[in-house]
């Protein structure tokens, strides 16, 4: 019996003790000597020009070191290319402190640096800036007719596939039809940890940036490009993050500001944004969607049309994949998908948990519910009748897809069979009860990653890769993979991440870290294993002489023949006998394109939700959620479950309370704080069941993992919205569903 099979079990987080004891250091907790503090000044207007910055009044305060603005920023990179990060959308990236023009409200316009944080904050409040205001437009409603089809967009953006069949005619001729518009406002990521950068001045133009980011290499390349720094001049570190959700995918202006000040002042500097400024760094865009569906007499989809329009900034064409999913989640031969942007005087939106899919999923899955009712079908039965065995967008089979099993297991756990179809037909505790469902689909992606594995003579394995840990469990799952690959207990393995001195890994997003970095970790450990085998075979009377690598296995601290377990050596003995103090191996992993090209690779889920609605008062209580996820192989039951619980809570927030309100008169968000931007609290969160339906899939990657960070959020929002309809008979199509919409 092996004690070193770790994958698929549920060990505790290996970094848990560091976190609960306060010894895990976040970006704002590196207290380097002689630290100065920067405080960002934000524009109070949405559009116009800075006429004057009265910086000298503030510079005169004792302890104030400098005020940086477009007036005095040194010559930096000229071309847009230098400011483009790995996932920059099309257009010209925002350049902080570059020019007097104001292009969005809360635009950072100055950085005040002082000996203490309190002084920098005070001085920032005193800084007088004269603006010349111009008329702005921040209301997407005014741009309905001015949508445009974006160009190439950012990495990962896929324009909707061309129409198939005859979607207009098929809709007109359908037995039953539905058409509806769905809307949601802007939402902000609101991670608990504020964006913070501590820049350590190492002397001689060299810096280390402890930065809140989901991609240390992305930030490093950005800094090299913008500030003209050499590869050895800048190191970027992020070992822990207090929530990212996509807000840390692109380099934020906090790191620009911190590095600018450190290089100019030749001193270590920390810049921390305020909670209010956390509403100036990108968001899920305000989105309008129109869905049209029609069914055949047998309840199959005759036509499906889905069009989305969302806001972007004046300077970048931020894109996300909103409508594409509607062409693959259900079988339909007549499909038309459309996607447009509209420019407003706002900052560029930014990827936020399940970007695009979370938005489009609401349109698609509420429309599916509306269509089911129009056709007189149970919403689950309707989905089963339209199950897609192929991805019709690309006309390929799925590498694996156990959504049907998700439907079955989820419905059984939830007790869907107790649901009566008629709206307002269920009651409990003096309230209306509603049950709703929704499903979703997300990409299973692998990106190129590298890792290094080292083993010391005492048998302790260290594996490094410059990926991230934004709370998802990266440390833990990588430790499990490494330990299992070399047959070691978890305690004998240390996984290190988040440092540009480590082998390169992609930004942590898109649910691809487990697949990408996990495979690199496995490959590096295998490469190290081959070296260990060679060392073992060098020993006199080695029982492994002549064995090929695929004929041996690492289990319980031993290296042994797969077919004859008695032919074994103890790993530590091999290392000690070799006289080597350390053995190391580098490896990288890229997707196996040859194997993958014939397939569509996706994770799927379904969520079932129950709500109680007090009809007189409009209050909604979500009482239960069951989420069933098919995402390949689950590496860690505990961290995976936590991800699904978090996803469900996100979906609940989107359904019932999250919205950043723009006051169009000022072109400014008004609820930019935790008191008035409502995210769910414990009292809002019901019992949540997470079910994982195992999929064997060696096409997606050798580990068979698909990633679960985003897929779990899908379906939830629509399930709750559909449950509210089932409870009340009222179809609310603009999110969030706050109580006044039910009065």
């Amino acid at each position, binding site marked *: 019996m092996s004690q070193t099979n770790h994958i698929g079990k549920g060990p505790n987080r290996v970094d848990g003790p560091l976190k609960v004891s306060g010894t895990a250091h976040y970006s704002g907790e590196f207290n380097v000597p002689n630290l100065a503090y920067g405080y960002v000044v934000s524009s109070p207007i949405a559009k116009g020009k800075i006429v004057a910055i009265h910086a000298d009044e503030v510079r005169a305060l004792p302890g104030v070191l400098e005020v940086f603005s477009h007036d005095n920023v040194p010559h930096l990179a000229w071309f847009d290319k230098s400011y483009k990060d790995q996932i920059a959308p099309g257009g010209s990236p925002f350049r902080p402190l570059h020019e007097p023009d104001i292009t969005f409200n809360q635009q950072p316009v100055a950085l005040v640096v002082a000996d203490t944080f309190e002084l920098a904050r*005070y001085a920032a409040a005193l800084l007088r800036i004269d603006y010349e205001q111009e008329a702005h437009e921040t209301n997407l409603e005014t741009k309905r007719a001015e949508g445009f089809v974006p160009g190439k967009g950012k990495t990962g953006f896929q324009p909707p596939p061309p129409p198939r069949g005859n979607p207009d005619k098929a809709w007109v001729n359908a037995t039953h039809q539905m058409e509806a518009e769905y809307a949601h406002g802007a939402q902000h990521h609101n991670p608990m940890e504020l964006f913070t950068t501590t820049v350590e001045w190492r002397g001689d133009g060299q810096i280390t940036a402890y930065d809140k980011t989901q991609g240390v290499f992305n930030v490093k390349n950005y800094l090299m490009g913008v500030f003209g720094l050499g590869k050895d001049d800048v190191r970027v570190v992020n070992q822990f993050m207090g929530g990212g959700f996509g807000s840390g995918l692109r380099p934020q202006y906090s790191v620009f500001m911190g590095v600018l000040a450190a290089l100019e002042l030749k001193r270590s500097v920390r810049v921390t944004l305020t909670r209010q400024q956390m509403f100036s760094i990108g968001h899920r865009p305000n989105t309008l969607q129109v869905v049209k569906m029609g069914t055949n007499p047998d309840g199959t989809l005759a036509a499906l049309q889905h069009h989305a329009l969302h806001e972007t900034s004046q300077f970048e064409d931020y894109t996300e994949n909103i409508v594409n999913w509607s062409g693959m989640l259900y079988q339909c031969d007549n499909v038309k998908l459309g996607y447009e942007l509209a420019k407003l005087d706002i900052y560029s939106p930014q990827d936020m948990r399940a970007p695009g899919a979370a938005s489009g999923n609401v349109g698609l899955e509420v429309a599916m519910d509306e269509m089911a009712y129009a056709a007189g079908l149970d919403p689950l039965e309707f989905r089963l009748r339209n199950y897609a065995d192929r991805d019709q967008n690309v006309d390929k089979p799925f590498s694996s897809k156990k959504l049907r099993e998700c439907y079955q297991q989820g419905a059984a756990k939830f007790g869907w069979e107790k649901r009566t179809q008629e709206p307002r037909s269920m009651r409990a505790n003096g309230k209306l009860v509603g049950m709703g469902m929704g499903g979703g689909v997300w990409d299973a992606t692998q990106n190129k990653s590298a890792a290094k594995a080292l083993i010391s003579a005492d048998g302790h394995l260290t594996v490094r890769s410059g990926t991230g840990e934004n709370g998802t469990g990266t440390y833990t799952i990588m430790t499990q993979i490494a330990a299992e690959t070399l047959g070691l207990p978890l305690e004998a393995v240390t996984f290190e991440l988040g440092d540009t001195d480590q082998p390169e890994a992609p930004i942590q997003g898109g649910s691809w870290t487990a697949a990408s970095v996990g495979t690199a970790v496995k490959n590096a450990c295998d490469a190290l294993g081959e070296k260990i085998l060679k060392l073992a075979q060098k020993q006199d009377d080695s029982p492994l002489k002549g064995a090929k690598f695929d004929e041996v296995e690492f289990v319980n601290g031993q290296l042994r023949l797969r077919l004859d377990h008695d032919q074994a050596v103890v790993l530590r003995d091999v290392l000690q006998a070799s006289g080597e103090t350390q053995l190391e191996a580098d490896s990288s992993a890229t997707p196996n394109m040859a194997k993958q090209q014939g397939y569509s690779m996706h994770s799927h889920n379904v969520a079932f939700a129950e709500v109680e609605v007090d009809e007189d008062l409009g209050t909604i209580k979500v009482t239960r959620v069951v989420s069933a996820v098919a995402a390949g192989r689950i590496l860690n039951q505990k961290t995976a479950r936590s991800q699904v619980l978090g996803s469900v809570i996100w979906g609940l927030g989107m359904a019932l309370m999250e919205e950043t309100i723009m006051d169009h008169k*000022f072109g*400014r968000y*008004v609820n930019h704080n935790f008191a*008035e931007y409502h995210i769910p609290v*414990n009292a809002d969160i019901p019992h949540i069941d997470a079910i994982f339906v195992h999929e064997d899939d060696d096409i997606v990657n050798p580990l068979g993992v698909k990633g679960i960070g985003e897929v779990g959020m899908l379906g939830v929002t629509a399930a709750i919205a559909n449950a509210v309809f089932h409870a009340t008979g009222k179809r609310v199509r603009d999110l969030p569903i706050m*109580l006044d919409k039910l009065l």
Partner: protein
Amino acid sequence: MHPFTYSRATDVADAVRDKAGHVASAYIGGGTNLIDLMKMNVEQPAHLVNVAKLPLSKIEDLPDGGLRLGATATNSDTAWNEDVKKRYPLLNQAILAGASPQLRNAATNGGNLMQRTRCYYFYDVATPCNKREPGSGCSAIGGYNRVCGILGTSEACIATHPSDMCVALAALAPTVRVSGPNGERTIAFEDFHRLPGDQPEFDNTLAEGELITSLDLPEKGFAKNFAYLKLRDRHSYAFALVSVAVGLEMDGDTIKEARLALGGVAHKPWRDQSAEDLLKGQPATAETFGRVAAHVVANAVGQGSNDFKIELARRAIVRALKQAAEGQQQAGDMYLGGQ
């Protein structure tokens, strides 16, 4: 945040003297609101007098059968005080409906009365606000005003008082005891907070330098038939869109005496004594409750994004009266009616 000096007062006289001796000074209790406002540059005191440690934290019986709530007793200690739970469960409920345990552990009773509005624009110094900067204009009128008032508003200000505790207090009608440079005096709770009129910068009727020392509850606590109903955008840690405090004295199915106050709808906790009069002597029926609720909101004016509050308030009043008449609620319930 602007620089400030700080001192810790040893007794009430010391506090009053200290504050009078400094320009632009302010008392600070739990600091759960003032510190936030200072960080946002909304409040810019030059001197803070800490009154949290003054010997005013007792909750004790009064000779007239009432209960004195010390001004520096925390909201938590007040809510969970055995006398409060038993004799004034409405107050227990209202306090527990507000903020979070952490905040209630720090916030004081005096400070609860002194907290300032949560109007979005009051908090954001980039926008005009008559309350923050008299004469600059009201951004909430014609702007986003979901949290704003529908009763007793003015052309200068539509802000609401954010407290839950104060809504229950409005119904229970204590006396507010204060000390100031001119000695001690008492203010009826009803007269403590004020409507905005053309001077929205003043939230209350305290004179310069006056300090709250206690809240003296009268004997009558409506411990049998009461309700605190809070409606909000999430189930905890959110300010009331509308809240209703009800205390009834029943004689069988007939209402002998009534108290009715609303939160989230006005610049002050909105006690409606004419509605209370309408309830007296009436049967506790849906018809009575509906008539009284319609009376309370008869003069309500919506401001756009808070139009719904008029209907919500009407329905909430009906529900709260029904709950109170039926004696449904128990002190210490964590989840309140309607949610």
